[in-house]
């Protein structure tokens, strides 16, 4: 749950018809990305699944409402069973709804901390992982694989990025978004976000992408674009540059807040100073999209970063 534009989508969800949850944007969408890889979207949430001759590798089941449409989307392209479900992280808004896939025999895979989180804060619709790993894990079915990588805490403490092969497309949830990483955070308080490792995590993902030759990502949320005609749905895929952009987003923000606090500006006043600063406008604000976010939200994010600067966490 991250992009600010996603909030708009969520807000409109309850007001709209089932077929289109925003005028012009379908509630459910499946994209064929080639090489057996598909992107499935239910409202603002997205996952991927890989179809092989030996079965299907699915990812985040999203929630109980998405479970039926997801199964239907898979059935529309293959009659093979779902053999694996890979969790990107432990948050309920992506990880719930997997029981129907469990019932057909799928094994659930996640980073080890996800199991601890899910067991500690149980949700009736979250299936606990059967297979856990520490640093990386490869789910293989025939000539296809879904490779999962963990680089420490980020959006939560078990977030993994995944590379679907042979499509060589990265699935990345909540820590950046296609088509650009220059997007405000959906929740500016950062909820469970682990700021101290965010830059390192994203840098590790950049290095992974470079070493694996990945140039395309699928993000875990629908991103909205805005033009003269209004809102539109950004494509499911975007450039790998979105990872670097998000890393730069954090680096610039962290440095600006740290510099301001080093001058003796109290934590609660940093946002007020930065939001009036021409330098901060040029370095940071001007890189954000012109619409779809609020300064009051950025002020909250700056306050969160001020705490990180003071406490190291």
């Amino acid at each position, binding site marked *: 749950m991250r992009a600010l534009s996603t909030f708009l989508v969520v807000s409109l969800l309850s007001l709209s018809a089932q077929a289109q949850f925003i005028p012009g944007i379908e509630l459910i969408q499946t994209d064929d990305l080639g090489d057996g890889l598909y992107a499935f979207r239910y409202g603002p949430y997205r996952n991927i699944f890989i179809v092989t001759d030996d079965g299907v590798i699915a990812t985040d089941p999203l929630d109980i409402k998405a479970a039926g449409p997801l199964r239907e989307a898979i059935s529309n392209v293959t009659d093979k069973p779902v053999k694996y479900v890979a969790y990107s992280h432990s*948050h309920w808004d992506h990880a719930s709804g997997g029981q129907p896939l469990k019932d057909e025999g799928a094994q659930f895979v996640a980073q080890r901390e996800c199991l601890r989180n899910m067991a*500690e804060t149980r949700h009736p619709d979250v299936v606990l992982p059967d297979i856990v790993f520490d640093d990386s894990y490869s789910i293989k079915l025939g000539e296809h694989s879904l490779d999962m990588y963990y680089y420490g805490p980020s959006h939560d403490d078990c977030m993994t990025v995944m590379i679907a092969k042979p499509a060589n497309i990265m699935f990345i949830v909540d820590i950046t978004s296609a088509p650009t990483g220059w997007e405000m955070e959906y929740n500016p308080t950062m909820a469970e976000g682990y700021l101290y490792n965010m830059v390192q995590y994203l840098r590790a993902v950049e290095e992974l992408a470079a070493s694996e030759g990945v140039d395309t990502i699928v993000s875990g949320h629908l991103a909205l674009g805005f033009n003269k005609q209004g809102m539109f749905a950004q494509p499911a895929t975007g450039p790998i540059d979105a990872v670097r952009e998000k890393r730069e987003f954090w680096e610039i923000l962290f440095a600006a807040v740290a510099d301001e606090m080093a001058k003796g500006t109290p934590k609660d006043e940093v946002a007020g100073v930065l939001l009036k600063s021409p330098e901060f406008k040029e370095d940071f604000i001007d890189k954000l999209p012109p619409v779809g976010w609020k300064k009051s939200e950025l002020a909250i994010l700056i306050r969160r970063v001020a705490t990180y600067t003071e406490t*190291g966490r």
Partner: protein
Amino acid sequence: MTLTGLPLQFLKPAILAAACLCTSLSLQAAETATVDLGNGLYAFRYDGQQSLFLVGDDRVIATDPLSKEAAKAYKAAIKKVTRKKVTHVAYTSSFFNRVPGGKELAGRRGEYVAQENCKANLQATPHPDAVLPTRTYTDQLSLDAGDASLEMHYFGQSYGTCLSVMIFKPANVMLVHGLVIPPSARVPDDPTIANYYLHNMVQFFVYVEELAAAEGVTQVVGSVVTEGEPLAPVSLVTDQRVFWDTLLRIVEVEYNKKTPAQRIPKTADMTALEGYEGYDPEHVGTMMRRIYSLYRIGR
């Protein structure tokens, strides 16, 4: 309870006098003071932060050094009270505004004590002035200072991932850094409630209440300087638990009504929160934004 010997009723002006004296000596100097809480327990105050030190019959156990600069003043303050050495430095947490500066207090031979997750945190994100814990514990530890002791207890993630609840004996005073601050239950200063592990918050307070009852704790002390008495009745723990319980339930009600996160501050009934210290609707509204995620994502 005295400020180095003064009766309590003179405490506040005396602290201010000490602060003013420091200020007059150097415009750069932070405000410092030492408060005698009785039974060998003292509060050291530095620039709004507060640490505790316990003087036993053969040693001194100090808590959070705060910073390199603060720790120098801290050591000087301890010297004014006793000639005994600081042998142990106990960390309440792993936060950089509490932990750095230990070497100034206890040198290289001192023992640095923390819950085991604090060590992991400080290893993951080192601070140049923070001494890594040399002794860790999982659930409970007692540091002996002869006729006094510091009991440390861990009840899971709460404020940070390694917060120790401390009981100073024989004073039987409890410290819950960041979460329980005399004189009364309050709204946290940070509206983003960063590092507050909401999924365990109420349960954490329940454990602390049970501990206090089991150990016969009667008073609590805070880790920041506030107006009024430095100690409060242990019932403050319950009051603060009720605050969290109330706040979480308000947001849960709105979440169950499917109120969008950004609208909750406008629709939620905050009446039950209005009497709390530090209450401000906008501030609490930001907290509610964070709390919404607890119900949406589980953390």
